[in-house]
Every structure is written in structure tokens, then in C-alpha cells.
């Protein structure tokens, strides 16, 4: 036995060291602070699927964390397995996987899903972006009817797409077996080298699996209005993961203005406002201008719920949200929420609309604290108010949150 001491002692000591090491690591899980979203008022259920992803800068380092109402995850501390488990937490995909099973396989990372009752349609436009091969301007449509258990998949070649260098799926609608796909098709004008975008509706007959119509509904030229002013086009639909019967086309203008301040002198600030708004009724194939009331000048269009359009304006210490019913040309609601003040005394806030709720946070740039307010925009009620706080034995003092993002649909 004595002559085998090498093969007994060395592995034995090694094993004891590793066992002790992992017991020690497990019993002292995180040296860094545990942040969590603490409720101040309202319903805790409102933040169950919310994560605040942010970078925390300490005096001697930084780390990326995801903060929820239960605690924080330091991403660099996750094991490979835990990391994979974490990235699999997409609630939309998980819900669709439960409902539609293997149909989701291979489609989760490409294209988009549209759901209508028990019918799920996946439109894959992933072959299109940035391709030089014009032959590839095809779209794959896959359908699964849960009631009849019928699955179908077909590829359609989009007509008249030779000049486009990039096609992007905006939304789709499905009525009476007629699928309408709206795409934004970008191209460069050869002479002026300006970038132009055509918004085209492709009508596909599901029965024959062919494109029966392609109509350009709107055209936009991407150019600067003046040296310190430019505009962009944005789209809004009322249903994020479902077919839409209309889309709102917004032209938003940005202007750099110089602000004079007694304390800081002159500094540049960017303002944004909705310059023009159109509604395209996909079913009726009709594009109409929306008249924005004069009192909404300087507001930005952020959200649509049926005929009611929601406009937002950030004043110095408050956020104004106005609901406007465009079918009745009538302002339906006016709500004002307090904004946040940061440690520098500046008022700042970020607004996100999701499912007729307004999420107001102070997640811009740097901040010593993160606050969250959730408002029901239909009733105007504040349904949640919370703040990121620390728990645990050793809270840290010197830190600042930087570049935070609010993930609502985890």
C-alpha cells in the first residue's frame, strides 16, 4: 500500500480541495450587492415579468445585471447552463411552444409570428435583408391551424423587387384566406444616391399560394430637412404579436436646438415631435391623413388602441399623455405624471407603452437609482410604483446605474 501513496494521496488531497472550494463558493454565492425592484405602491403582479437590465459601475469595476422584483442576476456569475436557461426565458416563444409544439421549432430566431385565434402564421423574411442575390427576395409563409391540426408551408417570390436592396417586414393581416404583407423596401436612387423607401402591400392568396397583387402605398425619401433638422418614419400597430387590420405611419422630426442656461451656459438639446401621421387600412386598402389637433404640437405619437391615439410630451418635471380619438376628432383623455429627478437635478424619464400600459422609468444615461411607474392609460390609474433597492448584509455605497433597458416581455 505504501508504494502507492502517490496515486492515493495526490488525487485525495486534490479532491478534498475542490470539494471544500465548491462548498465555500456555494455557501457564499455573491460577493456583490443584491439589488431588487421594491414595491412602493400598487400590485406586485405588474412587475412579475419585468427585468431591468443595466450596467452597474462600482469604484473598482462594473457588471451587467438583470434586476427583477425578486433580486438581481449578475450575468457574469451565471454558469454556462444557467446562462442558456436564462436566454431561453422568452415568454412569447415559450407560450407558443406550449400551444403549438414542434411547429415553432426552427422559427424562433427568424421572421415573425402572427396569431389569430387558433391559427398561427409564421412569416420568414430572413432571406431578404442585405442580399445581393435578387432571386432571394422570397418570403416563406408557414401556417398551423390548431383546430384542424393542419400544417402548411410555402414560399412566394415577391414581384418587382429587383431594384430593392433591403426588404423589411412591417406587419401582416389575414382576412378570408387573403394574406396581406406590408414591407418597407429600401433602395438607392442611382443619380442622387439618396435612400428611398417604398412601402408595399403584397396580397397573397392562401389557396393558390401566389402573390395576386403588389401595390405601393407610400413612398418616403430619407433626407435631412435642414442642417439641424431631420425626420424618420416609424410604424405603429395596435397588436404586437397578432395580425393588424391597420398600421399608423408616423413621420417624426428631430431638431437640434441650442438652449441658454444661466448655470451651464449654452448647450445643444434635441427635441422630437410627430410631424405627420397617416393611417393605412389594410383591409380596405386605403391610406388617409390623420389631422393632429393644434394643441398636440410638440407631442410625439407613441401608442394606438383602436381609434384612440396616444401622444406624449415630456415637460420639465412631468410627462403629459393625451388620448385622441381620430375617428371623432376628439381628445378623450389628458393625464399628467411626475417625471424623475436625477442626482444632478435634471428631470428625465423614458416612456414605454405596452398592452395599454405606460411604463415610466428614469433609465436614461447614468443614474444613482432606478424608479418605475406603471400607468393604465385607459383608466389613468397608477397601478404600480417601485424603486430599485439593495438587500443583503453588505450593501454597496459607491455605484451608479448606466445604460439600463426595461424588458417587459421576458
Amino acid at each position, binding site marked *: 500500500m505504501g508504494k502507492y501513496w502517490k496515486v492515493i494521496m*495526490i488525487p485525495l488531497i486534490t479532491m478534498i*480541495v475542490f470539494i471544500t472550494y465548491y462548498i465555500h463558493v456555494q455557501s457564499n454565492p455573491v460577493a456583490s450587492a443584491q439589488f431588487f425592484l421594491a414595491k412602493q405602491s400598487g400590485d406586485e403582479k405588474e412587475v412579475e415579468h419585468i427585468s431591468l437590465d443595466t450596467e452597474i459601475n462600482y469604484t473598482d469595476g462594473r457588471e451587467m445585471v438583470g434586476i427583477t422584483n425578486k433580486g438581481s442576476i449578475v450575468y457574469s456569475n451565471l*454558469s454556462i447552463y444557467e446562462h442558456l436557461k436564462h436566454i431561453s426565458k422568452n415568454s412569447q416563444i415559450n407560450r407558443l411552444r406550449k400551444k403549438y409544439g414542434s411547429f415553432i421549432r426552427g422559427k424562433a430566431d427568424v421572421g415573425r409570428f402572427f396569431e389569430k385565434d387558433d391559427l398561427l402564421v409564421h412569416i420568414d423574411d430572413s432571406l431578404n435583408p442585405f442580399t445581393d442575390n435578387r432571386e432571394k427576395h422570397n418570403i416563406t409563409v408557414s401556417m398551423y391551424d390548431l383546430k384542424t391540426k393542419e400544417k402548411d408551408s410555402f414560399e412566394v417570390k415577391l414581384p418587382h423587387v429587383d431594384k430593392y436592396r433591403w426588404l423589411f417586414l412591417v406587419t401582416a393581416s389575414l382576412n378570408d384566406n387573403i394574406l396581406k404583407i406590408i414591407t418597407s423596401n429600401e433602395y438607392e436612387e442611382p443619380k442622387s444616391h439618396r435612400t428611398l423607401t417604398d412601402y408595399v402591400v403584397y396580397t397573397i392568396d392562401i389557396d393558390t399560394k401566389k402573390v395576386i397583387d403588389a401595390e405601393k402605398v407610400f413612398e418616403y425619401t430619407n433626407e435631412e430637412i435642414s442642417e439641424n433638422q431631420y425626420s424618420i418614419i416609424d410604424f405603429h400597430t395596435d397588436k404586437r404579436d397578432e395580425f393588424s387590420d391597420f398600421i399608423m405611419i408616423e413621420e417624426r422630426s428631430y431638431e437640434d436646438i441650442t438652449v441658454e442656461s444661466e448655470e451651464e451656459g449654452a448647450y445643444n438639446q434635441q427635441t422630437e415631435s410627430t410631424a405627420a401621421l397617416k393611417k393605412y387600412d389594410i383591409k380596405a386598402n386605403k391610406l388617409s391623413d390623420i389631422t393632429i389637433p393644434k394643441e398636440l404640437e410638440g407631442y410625439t405619437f407613441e401608442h394606438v388602441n383602436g381609434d384612440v391615439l396616444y401622444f406624449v410630451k415630456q415637460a420639465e418635471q412631468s410627462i403629459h399623455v393625451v388620448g385622441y380619438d381620430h375617428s371623432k376628432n376628439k381628445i378623450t383623455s389628458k393625464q399628467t405624471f411626475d417625471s424623475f429627478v436625477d442626482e444632478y437635478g435634471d428631470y428625465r424619464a423614458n416612456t414605454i407603452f405596452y398592452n395599454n400600459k405606460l411604463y415610466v422609468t428614469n433609465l436614461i444615461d447614468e443614474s444613482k437609482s432606478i424608479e418605475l411607474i406603471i400607468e393604465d392609460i385607459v383608466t389613468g390609474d397608477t397601478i404600480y410604483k417601485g424603486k430599485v433597492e439593495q438587500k443583503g448584509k453588505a450593501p454597496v455605497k459607491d455605484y451608479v446605474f448606466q445604460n439600463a433597458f426595461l424588458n417587459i416581455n421576458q
Partner: protein
Amino acid sequence: MKNYVKLFNFEMGRFLKGYLALVGITVAVQVLGVVIASRSYTNKINKYVYHEGMAIDEFLSQFGDMSMYAIIHSLWIQGPILFCISVLLIYTLLIWYRDWFGKNTFIYRLLMLPTERINIFFAKLTTIMVMVLSLVALQIMLLPVLNKVMSSLVPEAYFMNLSFKEMISGFDVLTILFPFSFSDFMIHYGLGLLAVTLLFTAILFERSFRLKGIVYGILYIALSLLIIFSPVIMIAITEKSYLYPLELFYLELILCVLVFIMSILTSRFLLNKKITV
């Protein structure tokens, strides 16, 4: 089993001196490094605080406090670790070639032993893995000791006591050598075991077919890597993943185990049927 243990003990014995030398170098250099760095820091304290009358706060704001974090980035700590890694990598090749090219052609005796030849393979493989893991364990034991040495040399007001985790977070190689989660430990060293196994099989190809064997060995490693990475290659080609992230993880795990078994079986075949002296 008994023959395997005998061979393992024999292989351990053959490298024991080299192994102990690595242990000695690591301990000596790292302790010396901590002593020198601590002395240099205390000399600064003597010069500025005791002789020139600088306030402690001013000294700390100018030079910072002393902790293991300061030395973990230096060659005193990193040097021995990288040296041990290099020696063990070279020994992974030498463990086979010394049997052919050593003073006596020892491989004759090894292959003539009345035991399954694959035991030679397992003994060598276990030796390399035990050497690697025991040196990593040594480093795990050494870091808190170095921290204690430093704390005894630097006055308390100037010393910042770091947790083990804080110490190793300062050096990326350490986080690979001793990851915080046990599952990552299994993955890291499982991949290490697989890499050594593949290299051993490639060496056996070379020893079996000589010049042609080098090509076979390279092709064998390429084929193994192709098998392991085939799911990822498929995703890159089709631009679609038919597997969800966790499924992909489990598939990769299965493929690694399959490649490991394939390597053992190939090595067994080469040792039994093709190896020449």
C-alpha cells in the same frame, strides 16, 4: 484494475520529480512575489508617511491600498501558472514519446506487459489529468495563504482583505481554471480531458503509421471537431436553429461523450493492432 493502478502509479512516479519541481517553483515564486511586493509597498509607507509625514488618507489616495489584486496581475503570480500550463502541455506529448525515444526503448516492456494495452493509455491520461487538477488545487490553497502572508507584512490600515472570489476575478485565466460553478468546472475539465484524449489518439496514429500517421492524426482531430461542432455548423449554414439553446447544449454534451468513447476505442484498436516499435 490492479494493472491499471500499477501503471498509473508508475506513470506518476516517472513525473513526480518534475511535478514536485513545479509545485516548488509555484510556491517559491508566488510567496517571494508577495513578500517583495509587500516590502516595496511598506518601504513606500516608511518613506512617505513616517519620514515625510504624509497623512494616511493622502497616501492611500495617491498610491492606493495594498491587496492581492495588485499582485495577481503581476508576473509573480501569473508567471508560475503559465509556466505550469506550458510544462504540462509539453509533457502531454512527452509522456508518450519518452517511451520510444528515452534511454531505453521502454515501450517494448510496456507493450509486453500481461495486461490490456488500453490500460497504458488510461494510466497516461489519468496522470495528466491528476497533475493538472492537483496543480490547480495547489493554486486554490495558495491564494488564501498568500493573502495571509501579505496581511502580516502590510500594516492593517493600508491592507484591503479580498475574498477568494474577488482575488480570482482579477485574472481571467484563474476564472477558467477554477470556475465559480461546479457545472462549469465539469465542462471546462471535461473539454480538457477530451482534448488530451484526442491528442493521445493522434499521437498513437503517428506512432502506428509514422509519417502517414501525422496526416491520419490531423484528419482524426479534424473529424472529431467536425462531429462536435456539426450542430453549430448546421445553424451557420441554414441560418436556422431547429434546436432550442438548452437542447443544443445537451446535444453538444452527447456528441462530446461520443467523440470521447470513439477516441478510446480508436486508441484501443491502434494499441492492440497497429502500434509498432
